[in-house]
């Protein structure tokens, strides 16, 4: 019985890891290609949640989870074109400062537009409740999220590995000078990567609005976890981030099963141990420009 409970926590942790993954994957892509730690990533997550709650009021939940990430991705274009682009070759402290500042601006903007108190959002009635698979209990809604995450993951993997777009992006991570020498400008690719990254963060926000509190600081709360996942996974590695996200979810679940008080600390301990053994992260590649 004890083992079954533990297994249940592991499976639940995998689902939770999927949620971390949506946010961390975009962060990692932007970091790997542009060399910029986007501390404003959480703000796009929060915007995704707020915009989807607004759209739900008029068009329903189904439209909201599609339109909100698209709207936020459009915002991502402006973000890349007018802010991020200036900092790819600058001292990293500048890009950290500007994205950190932007996160504050975004949080206050949300406060001004929607107010400081949280806004309410609920799961559509049809998606409520839990389902049993054997002796395992799953929230119906989280199974839906899991399906969406797997779909997004497959799409991003195909995009990066089976298209010419992906080849340029991967080459850009490893050898930006070589790509430039071949006459390919990386900038439009970077715009697309930022769109994709913040779009995924917004998608996570849209799906999590109905089950977590929707409040202005929600972005600041999530960025730390996403950052930890990226560091554990390692730069430039698609699967590294995937494994790290799932690992963080599972380790948290197991820790809460045995030692609830240590639940939130578990991911930092995990990061500590991973960095001790593998300073580049689990599957981090050697990327010349970062060494």
């Amino acid at each position: 019985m004890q083992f079954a409970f533990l297994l249940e926590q592991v499976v639940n942790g995998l689902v939770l890891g999927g949620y971390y993954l949506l946010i961390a994957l975009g962060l990692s892509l932007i970091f790997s290609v542009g060399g910029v730690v986007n501390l404003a990533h959480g703000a796009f997550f929060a915007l995704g949640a707020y915009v989807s709650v607004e759209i739900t009021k008029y068009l329903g939940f189904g439209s909201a989870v599609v339109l909100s990430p698209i709207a936020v991705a459009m915002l991502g274009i402006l973000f890349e074109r007018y802010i991020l682009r200036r900092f790819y070759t600058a001292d990293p402290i500048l890009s950290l400062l500007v994205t950190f500042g932007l996160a504050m601006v975004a949080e206050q903007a949300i406060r001004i537009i929607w107010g400081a108190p949280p806004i309410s959002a609920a799961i559509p009635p049809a998606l409520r409740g839990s389902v049993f698979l054997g002796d395992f209990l799953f929230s119906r809604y989280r199974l839906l999220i899991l399906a969406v995450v797997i779909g997004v993951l497959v799409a991003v993997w195909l995009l990066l590995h089976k298209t010419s777009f992906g080849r340029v992006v991967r080459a850009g991570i490893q050898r930006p000078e070589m790509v430039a020498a071949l006459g390919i400008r990386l900038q439009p690719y970077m715009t697309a990567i930022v769109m994709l990254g913040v779009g995924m963060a917004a998608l996570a926000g849209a799906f999590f609005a109905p089950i977590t509190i929707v409040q202005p600081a929600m972005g600041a709360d999530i960025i730390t976890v996403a950052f930890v996942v990226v560091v554990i996974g390692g730069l430039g590695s698609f699967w590294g981030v995937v494994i790290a996200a799932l690992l963080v979810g599972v380790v948290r679940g197991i820790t809460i099963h045995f030692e609830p008080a240590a639940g939130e600390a578990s991911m930092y301990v995990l990061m500590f141990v991973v960095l001790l053994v593998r300073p580049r992260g689990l599957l981090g590649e050697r990327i010349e420009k970062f060494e």
Partner: protein
Amino acid sequence: MFSYSRRTLLKTGAAFAGASALGFPAIVRAQATRIKIGHLVPLTGFLGAIGSYAQLGVKLAAEEINQSGGIMGKQIDLISEDSVNPATASTKAQRMIEQDGAVVLLGEISSASSLTIMQVAERNKKVFFSTGARSDALRGKNCNRYSFHCDIPNTVMVNAVGTALNQKGMVKGKKFFTLTADYIFGHDLLKAAKTFFDANGATLAGDELIATDVTDFSPYLLKVRQAKPDVVCCNLAGNQVTNLVKQYAEFGFPYPLVGFNLNTGDAWAAGEGNLSGTWPTVWYHTLDNPASKAFVAAFTQKYGKPPENHAWIEYVTLKLLAQAINEIKSTESDALIAHFEKQTEFDIMKARKGYFRSWDHQLVQEAYPFTVKPKGEMKDKWDMLVLGDAVPVAAEPLEKIYPTKTQNPCEMKA
């Protein structure tokens, strides 16, 4: 092209992510005039949402007092800031007294921060009205002569909900599973809950202590299901309550969810159809008395939404403080304490007046259990709660639901 090392990048990145977790300060300052009053409330973090209501309430009170001539003919200069966390709260309280010249302090929702401000108040011999902190320990073993407590303590919330649950036959012989906020407030509430369970024939099937920054409750909900309790009881605080209520509805468990702590703001944030069960409250904007209605009208007109219970308590506290100072014509701490220790009664927008109990400085007042209104009956999105009868019932003395002198280990040093 890139001249920095990955290691530097990671380190600075981690530092910034850490800094961002601390929250962004939201500072609001009034113009300097005559009587300075310091106000601290969490505007960020897990209590930030309800803290924002508290700030709106205290600002409205200050404006109204200033319009009607101020305190002793002087205008109030309200210094209202984000208390952030216990350490910052204490630093800011000290600064407000020392540098800004605040004659009195009020505010706070977090019991942990309130405790540190209480110590600052005692050290500086300034009066502090702890408006929204509910831990029993603050008015119990940690009480001091300079601190007054306006919100209902944990024991009263447990008694208010417990009485209602008892009437529904949901206590005797039942197995409870509690989810508890892991800081002084939660520990304190769990203790009060255990006392209640023991006294009323209920058992505790399990308890989980949950950190205040947790947003995902699924691992804890799985543990609830493993324990198969009769009733699940929420002893959480602030954003935690909203997150739990949402995710509890998501999983759709058959066990009824009740709670010994809830602020209306948390209920409003939970979303349609997510909240159910029986909970306590200290005030609600639908209470039917003239003073309350006037306040609700003024607040709604100014801010476009009805006041939450923390807006009410801040408003009432500043008002009764101004009234007291006007009566005794002094802002001296000793004079104020003597005045309140006379157990002077104040209109606090409830059927019965309230007063600060002389020996533990607790504002003695009615409390209410409530259940959730069915969706069809709600007039608007704020109209969520059905208030039960006031506790204690009208015929009984107010102090009946408060800890007695033998139960409450408060000893004040002169």
